[in-house]
């Protein structure tokens, strides 16, 4: 217990870093993923092609490689992120957006075609029918898969530890080095940190799922 109290400042800031990495990149991925899903179902072949290309590239590239590219690769073309934290958010967000887009696309496909036809029949254009009729129904059916994407993202933030961002996993490495005799305690503290993020999210997603369910 004394160990936890002694290292509380480090643990707290590491926890907050992990949490903000997850939240910031999660929001970024949600917005970008929604745009990509919209592009993938759009009537314009160019938009569809671009979105498909994006999804295939990021879904099939290891996250660590994406990190490497954004931290070191882009230096070659004279680009650099203002901070390591922002670079990590970009890597996590760009990567996760591909998964959000795929989850949403399956949700869009699950909305009966008659819904979009009825929307077009009353004069809504493609964007309007997507926004007001199709996506609201698609989001409801993809709450469980989006929950999975979010939990995977929360854990994927640990890759940032390898790129000098002091998150929970980085704190684990640091504390384990200097407290070899208390290694189980270190693990306990770090795992607890992740669980504090992921478990309530799982409950929240389940609650959202029951609240937004639509009767057909």
């Amino acid at each position: 217990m004394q160990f936890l109290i002694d290292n509380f400042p480090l643990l707290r800031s590491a926890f907050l870093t992990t949490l903000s990495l997850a939240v910031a990149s999660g929001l970024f991925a949600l917005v970008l993923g929604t745009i990509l899903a919209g592009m993938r179902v759009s009537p314009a072949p160019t938009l569809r092609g671009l979105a498909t290309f994006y999804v295939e590239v990021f879904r099939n590239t290891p996250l660590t490689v994406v990190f490497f590219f954004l931290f070191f690769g882009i230096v070659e073309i004279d680009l650099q992120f203002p901070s390591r934290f922002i670079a990590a958010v970009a890597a996590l967000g760009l990567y996760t957006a591909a998964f959000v887009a795929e989850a949403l696309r399956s949700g869009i496909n699950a909305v009966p075609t008659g819904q979009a036809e009825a929307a077009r029949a009353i004069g809504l254009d493609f964007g309007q029918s997507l926004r007001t009729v199709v996506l609201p129904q698609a989001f409801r059916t993809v709450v469980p898969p989006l929950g999975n994407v979010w939990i995977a993202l929360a854990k994927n933030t640990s890759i940032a530890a390898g790129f000098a961002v002091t998150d929970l996993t980085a704190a684990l490495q640091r504390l384990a080095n200097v407290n070899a005799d208390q290694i189980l305690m270190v693990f306990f503290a770090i795992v607890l940190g992740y669980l504090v993020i992921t478990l309530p999210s799982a409950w929240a997603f389940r609650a959202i799922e029951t609240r937004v369910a639509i009767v057909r």
Partner: protein
Amino acid sequence: MTSRPNGEPLVRLSGVNKWFGDLHVLQDIDLSIDRGEVVVVIGPSGSGKSTLCRTINRLEGVDKGEITIDGERLPEEGKALARLRADVGMVFQSFNLFAHKTILENVTLGPVKVRRKARADAERRARELLDRVGISAQADKYPAQLSGGQQQRVAIARALAMDPKVMLFDEPTSALDPEMINEVLEVMTSLARDGMTMVVVTHEMGFARRAANRVVFMDGGRVVETATPEDFFTRPESERAKDFLSKILNH
């Protein structure tokens, strides 16, 4: 509602052809529909009558030929097409009410988003229309809480809320339990009586006799015969129409 001289037909299809792959579903269709006219399209399943109905607001594109509404050629895609669709009401076989919106929201969505009406005005008008189709008590429910007949009457109110120039009905009673068919047909009959221009694809011969100005009989992707209901049901000219009528009227 009218902006052009009465000589011009409201809907005109000329030389319309459409293929689904190798299947020639619409073959050289010529059809004009005047203002206030009620045209009932009948024919065996697979005759292309639903497809014909769906080409009029371009839910199905055509491969050849031209369709004009109120003198204006159907645009290809995009905003112009959306604007034109707003003037063409459509009622589907499977109702297609927006499942995540209340009955009232279903009826106000188009007026608010497309016509840019104030919400309060749109709601007042929606309640009038729901009252007209006998659903006013259900305004705050969701579609799944209503019977099929009620949902279809809401779908009619939703289309009417756009003040359409013409209403398309694509087999509006085919998905309904028998005891609910009449409540929908009554609403349609009263619409016809009020002078709405209507294209109705249906198997309801009683409705055709009662409300149609003209019956269009389709078979194999062609318009085989066009006649008044009286003529069509008592002395059909084509063999195919005679055959069709003998099959459906003898039980």
